């Protein structure tokens, strides 16, 4: 992928998410991911309609005119995007692969964060840390984040058959980001042994799991014999989908695993969103924000 094409795709994603960032998420993102609290900024002369509770009596007495305290919400929030680029993400049955959806969501989160004057950092991982972009502010930076995402995920730059190791990513995150941050973990969670690290990370940070799912992963259609290749391990197996019982067993296994994961997330008090590749991601995200907003107010 040359630079021109890369920029084109960055631009494309920016356009795709702009509407969502500016309109749909504008207020919601802000209110859901709050900073530490209110920080005193200045005092100014009382104006009609100001809350009398905010009148600074000392200053008012000294100046013999009413003054009110003005607070700023402390933003200085750090948003970390943990992005899973393992091979299993290169799968999709409805037009776009999971990785594309994930990229767009990551870009969306980054843009929303920047818009709220937050710092955005990026960790791309598979079974190891592939790329780390330290958290910074600014529009230029968000474009860089998007560019890294797209560049990293270009077929030539991703090794084939890379596994997923969420634990590695979480450990790295815990080392790098000492202060409390909002962390979006964008993955398909097709991995094992990350439970403990997730628990620790969730305690230290505000962790949100975004699970990207393709409908085919949960339910296979009856297509007779099908030869499947595991994207991560390269393993090949022949599957007979012609029998109802087999298909049911597959979907049962999938939903069982999903349920197990959800139960675990709930048990550690972690927020999570399921995003399906065949649906718009706006609706589940909005729903999620509303749900969080309710919890905060």
């Amino acid at each position, binding site marked *: 992928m040359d630079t021109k094409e890369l920029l084109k795709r960055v631009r494309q994603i920016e356009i795709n998410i702009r509407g969502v960032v500016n309109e749909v998420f504008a207020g919601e993102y802000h209110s859901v991911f709050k900073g530490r609290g209110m920080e005193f900024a200045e005092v100014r002369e009382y104006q009609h309609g100001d809350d009398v509770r905010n009148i600074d009596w000392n200053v008012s007495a000294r100046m013999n005119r009413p003054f009110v305290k003005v607070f700023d919400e402390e933003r200085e929030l750090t948003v970390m995007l943990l992005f899973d680029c393992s091979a*299993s*993400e*290169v*799968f999709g049955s409805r037009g776009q692969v*999971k990785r594309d959806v994930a990229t767009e969501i990551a870009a969306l989160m980054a843009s929303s964060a920047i818009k709220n004057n937050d710092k955005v950092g990026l960790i791309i991982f598979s079974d190891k840390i592939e790329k780390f972009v330290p958290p910074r502010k600014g529009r230029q930076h968000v474009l860089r984040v998007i560019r890294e995402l797209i560049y990293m995920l270009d077929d030539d730059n991703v090794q084939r058959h890379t596994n997923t190791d969420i634990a590695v990513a979480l450990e790295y995150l815990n080392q790098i980001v000492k202060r409390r941050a909002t962390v979006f973990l964008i993955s*398909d969670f*097709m991995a094992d042994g990350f439970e403990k690290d997730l628990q620790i990370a969730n305690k230290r940070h505000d962790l949100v799991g975004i699970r990207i799912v*393709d409908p*085919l*992963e949960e339910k296979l259609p009856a*297509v*007779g*014999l*099908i*030869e*499947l*290749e*595991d*994207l*991560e*391990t390269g*393993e*090949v*197996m*022949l*599957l*007979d989908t*012609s*029998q109802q019982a*087999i298909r049911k*067993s*597959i979907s049962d*296994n*999938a939903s*069982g*695993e999903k349920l197990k994961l959800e139960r675990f997330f709930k048990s550690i008090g972690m927020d999570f969103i399921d995003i399906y590749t065949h649906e718009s991601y706006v609706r589940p995200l909005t729903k999620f924000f509303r749900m969080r907003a309710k919890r905060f107010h």
Partner: protein
Amino acid sequence: MFRFANPEYLFLLIIIPLIAVYYLRRQRRLSGHVKFSTLRHLKKVPRTLKQTLRRYLFLLRLGVLALLILGLARPQSGSKQEEIITEGIDIVLALDVSSSMLAEDFRPENRLGASKEVAKEFVEGRTNDPIGMVVFAGEAFSQCPLTLDYGVLMQIMDQTDIAPSEWDGTAIGNGLATAVARLKDSKAKSKVVILLTDGENNAGEVDPVTAAQVAQTFDIRVYTIGVGSRGTAPIPRVDPLFGKRYVQVPVSIDEDLLKRIAAITEGQYFRATNTEKLREIYAQIDELEKTKIEVKEFTKYSELFINYAGAALLLLLLEVLLMNTYLRKLP
């Protein structure tokens, strides 16, 4: 018997296990597959029969290959066949049908009946020898030309009866000459006339000795048989007044003539006084004229490759059919 005409091609069979190994090793790369994010929960489902069958479908292809190689090696099935290459002896039976043959000194029936019966036995004992038949009384007729169809010959023999009275007599010369005429153009190595009579030459235009000399010229051997008991023999006569009567008639065989004929043609003369004796004589002639049968044995092979090629085609069709219907696989 089964064999391969070009067994060297069978060495090609070695490639089949090689292909099998290659296929099993490279199966993954040889066929396309649908990429799937993870097989973790798919691996837990049980295997189905279809799955197993599909795995081993390539064996059919190998079978096709094996059959084609076998076909290439030219399988043949041989059947042993015998061919008798020796030509048989041409035999003409010259039978006296004069009225004296009605004499009942031979059992059963009479001289003619006994002669016919023994002659038939003789014919049955021969194989591959063309046999013809000439009858003579006052005149001589070819009853049956030389033939290998013994069935027809015996049928004709059965129908042979005593000559009508206007042709009565015993024309040995004519009979022999007619028999010789049957044999003269024959290409057979050995030609034989068996002349059976019970009387003296008393009719016909051909002198028996002359006929014998002619026979000798054509290398024809003549075995002469005189039939008739010693002394007299009862001959039935139909009397308009008293019905059937037996008349004792003295047996008069011109033995000298018959011996001479035999001598000229390097044959032999026999005298039969009863049916048993006659049977022995025929057996003796049978022995004397044994055809030396030369049998050439050879194996005839028929090509079987078409069966193998056909089976290969069927298997191939089956494989293609299964692959595209019941065992169709994505991608």
